[in-house]
Structure formats: C-alpha cells, structure tokens
C-alpha cells in the first residue's frame, strides 16, 4: 500500500533529523500507523521541562485522511481535552482542511507550537481558554503545576 511507503519515509526522516523537542518511534514495530511521540514542553511556556507522551494515529487512508494527535500525558491546555483521551484540536487536522501534502513533522511542530501559543478561540476546554484569556497568571500556574505533577 502506498501509504505505508510514505509513512516509513516520514518516520525515517523524523528519526534521522528530528525537529526540536520532538522524538518519535513506533508504538509497536509491526504497526506503522501508531506512533509514540515524546514532546518536550517549549521553553518559555509553562510546559517547559515537561516531557509529554503524545500518540499519533494514522488512518489507513493516510495521506488522504489526516492523522489524529492525542496527549497520553495529562496536560492543562485550552486545546487539549481534559479527559482520558487527551485529544488535541488542530485546525489542520480537520478532515476538510487536511492536505495530503502536509507532513507528520509539520503536524507535530504545529502541535508543539500550540503549547507555546494556545488558541483560546479554538478551544476544546472552554474553562481553561477563559482562564487563559482573563487570568494568564493563574493559567500558567496551574499548567506548570500539572506539568510538574504529570509530565516530569
């Protein structure tokens, strides 16, 4: 299948020259569709010094259908659901906005960028988004606390 070839290619690229703060590997060597990503909290964000386990799942139709990104490590963030799924809401990953020419590396970099700059207007956790907008200090405090507790 064509998708496996492309996925392997992207995996090779990502392991050989990983983007800053991102390391990838397969969750299970026999399955190229499930990736384990370790994402380091970007400097300057309340997630700094945290290591987040992110799961990236590729559909068999990849690259025609978008991958999904979810945080296995608990994270206090407006764009990540605060539940056992930890789904991250990324505009570029919506089925109707996805472009096959987007690479996984770009997706992961975008996801990490979102840790530095949350998008409260596109939030999945409205309460955190509200706090991010109205009480940044408290948001950062809680996010740091969660990072310390869950991601280090």
């Amino acid at each position, binding site marked *: 299948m*064509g998708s496996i*070839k*492309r996925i392997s*290619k*992207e995996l090779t690229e990502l392991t050989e020259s990983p983007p800053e703060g991102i390391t990838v590997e397969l969750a299970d060597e026999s399955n190229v569709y499930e990736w384990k990503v370790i994402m380091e909290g970007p400097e300057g964000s309340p997630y700094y010094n945290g290591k987040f386990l992110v799961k990236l799942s590729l559909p068999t139709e990849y*690259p*025609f259908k978008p991958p999904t990104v979810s945080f296995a490590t608990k994270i206090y963030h407006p764009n990540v659901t*605060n*539940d056992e*799924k930890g789904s991250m809401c990324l505009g570029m990953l*919506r*089925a*109707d906005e996805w*472009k*096959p*020419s987007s*690479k996984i590396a770009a997706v992961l970099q975008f996801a990490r960028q979102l840790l530095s700059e949350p998008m409260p207007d596109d939030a999945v956790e*409205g*309460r955190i988004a*509200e*706090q991010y907008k109205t009480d940044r200090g408290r948001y950062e405090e809680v996010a740091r606390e969660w990072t310390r507790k869950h991601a280090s």
Partner: protein
Amino acid sequence: MPVAGFGSGMIEIPPEPPSEGSPSHRADSSSPPRDNPWVDHNPWEREPQESQERQNPGLLGRGISPFSSVHTYRSPNGRFSFISSATLDTGMASGQRNNGPNPIVPMMIQSFDTLLRSLMEPNPHGYRGFGDDPSHPQSSTSPDWLEDDHLTGGHPGLSPHNGDGPQRINISEIMDAVRADIGVQTMRRARGNRGPATPHALSILSAILNMTRSGDAVYSQEELDRVITELVENTGGTSTAAPPASDAAIQALPKKKVNEEMMGSEGKAVCSICMDNVELGLEVTVLPCTHWFHFDCIQAWLTQHDTCPHCRRSINANTEAGEGTSENPVVIQDSPEQPRSDRRHSSSRTMRSGRSSLSSFQSRLSPRISPRRSPTPEGGESSNRQSSRGDSSSGGGFATWLANRFGNSS
C-alpha cells in the same frame, strides 16, 4: 446483533460562572443544583404514554435493559445538563437478522409506537390542518404535492397555536423532515383522513432504524461525544469537504514530463502525495493550478476531492465556482437530484428557526435513505412529484411558496 438507536438530547447552559474542577459523569441525581431551574426539565413529561414507559424500569433505565438506556450528564454545578436516551432495535425490519424471538422487542416497538403516535396525533391545543386554514391559497390549481402531509400539517414552530412546549415541536418537525426525505408518498394520509397514525409511525421508525448504522447507538459518554462531533461537523447540510472529481475530469488532466524548471533551484523535487523523489523526464500529471503529482497519486486523491491537494484550488479550471455551490453541486449517487434542493430549502427553513441540528439530522439520514426508496410505481410517482417541486416554471417554486407561507424571504 444489529442495533440501531434513536436518541434525543438537550444542552442547557444558564449564564453561570465557570466552575472549578473537571466535569464528572454521573447518573440521574436526585438533588438538582438549585442554580439551574431546568436541570430536571423533562420535555416528555406531558406525554402520558411516555410516563408509562418511564415507570417501567425494564424499558428505560440505565444499564437495566440491553435495549435501551438513558444517560444523564450534569456538570458539578449544574451548568451543563445533558440527557441522552437510546432505544435499540434488534432488527425488527429485517427478519433474517433476527436471531430468535425476543419478548422485549415487541414491547419496545409498541411503546415507541405509542410515543410516536401521541406526537403525531393532532394536538388538542394544536395546529390545524391544511384544509382548515382559510388564509391559505388552496385552489384547484394548487400543485398536487401541496397535499403532502408534511406540508399540510402546518408548521407548529411557526404557528401561533402552540402553547405546549417547544420540544414537542422539535420532534414533530424532525418527523416531518424524516418523512419528507423518506418519500412522503409511502406514508401519506388520504386528504381529510385523520385516522390512526400507527402505520406511518411504524414505517418511519423502521425506515430510521433500518438506515441507521450500528455505530449510531450510543452507550457511553464517549460515543455520544463522537456522535455529537460528527453532527457538528456536518452542520448546515453542506460539508465543506470538496466532492469527488469525475473520472473524465481526472483523465482529461494534462500530463507533462518533469523538466529542469519543475525540479526547482535545488534540482530535487518530490510528489507531495507519496513524497517520492521524481527524476527528470518522468511523466507527471499537472493540475490547472500548476501543481503536479504522479498520476496514480493524484488520481487517488481526486476520486475523493476535486481540489488540488496542495493549494485546494478546484481542478475545474473553467469554473470559478467553488465546490458545493449551485454551479458545482455535490451529487450523491442513486439519489434523485431534486429532493436535494427540497432538502436545502427545508434546511434553510430550520436554520432560520434556529434548529440547525435538524438539518444535520436530515443530511445525515438522507444519503442512506435515498437509495432504499422503493422502486414501486408509488415510488416513481414520488420522484416525479418531487421533481415538480423545484421546477421554477410551476409558479415560483417551493422556496417561494415557503416564503409566502411563512412570511420569510431568502
């Protein structure tokens, strides 16, 4: 076991300050938070048949019966309240799928039917039928289809007579929409005959249940979330995703051998679908936007969406129309085109009354319903009638009629 579901839900959000702590899931609580007067609001309470059902714990009750479930979700301070109910079918409309007699099934059907009946029976306070409305310009020249029940029932949401609670209206509108989509002829009542609605309710029910994928039955909050997400993404009846390109259009795309200019300054280029390097002289397919790909790669994409996978421009170079517009409509195979425009009108109608969920409900149902429309003479008549609806020569068309009827333009 094939299962199907029928669910309903409400979200009520009073203007309360945000709560601390994450939402929790719990079953019906006996102590409703004081700050939300609607927490225990039950739209079905006025339905005696439904009450009867509710008193029977074997039929409705979380986890008691495998055939139905009611989930109540409430955030800790009552800010959100969400009630979902799912009723399952074990394949009543397709005997071959029945694994054996199940005593609960007929009970279920009967209860559901009773409920539907009560919803569809003329309402004592209620709206009047078409024939009772002297203001309506009914005449011998009226198009035949005006008799269709879903039009003549009057739209209670817009009628001054409804004092009986909004949820009832929702259901009846949903049923109207469903009937309109299924093909009203099969369940059309004779004019003036206000007899029992049972057969109609049952055929609607079986049609819905038959259509519904097994995945539509929700058992958990997670699944409910998924269904809601799906609904939200489909809202408006027009998906923003581009429709597939035709095979002819794909074959007609120009091909070109990769030249040095296309290789770029670094002398290296890839097909951005498979990410494979391309070599000089390799034949690739070029889209009107000048982006190029391996033919096999771009073909695989274009059979799903008729846009460039890189810049999203339409491959139909001659039309500036974007996907899904009237000049470039999405055509669903096996589905007559005219009911689509009918649906679009009813979508805009329901959107105007602020019930966008209804239109997504319709749009979700219809593609699955259409191919099953029975090929009986009655069915054929149905599509003919529907064709006449959108015909602009028949005095303004359906939209105009709607606009006149409900005093709403556009």
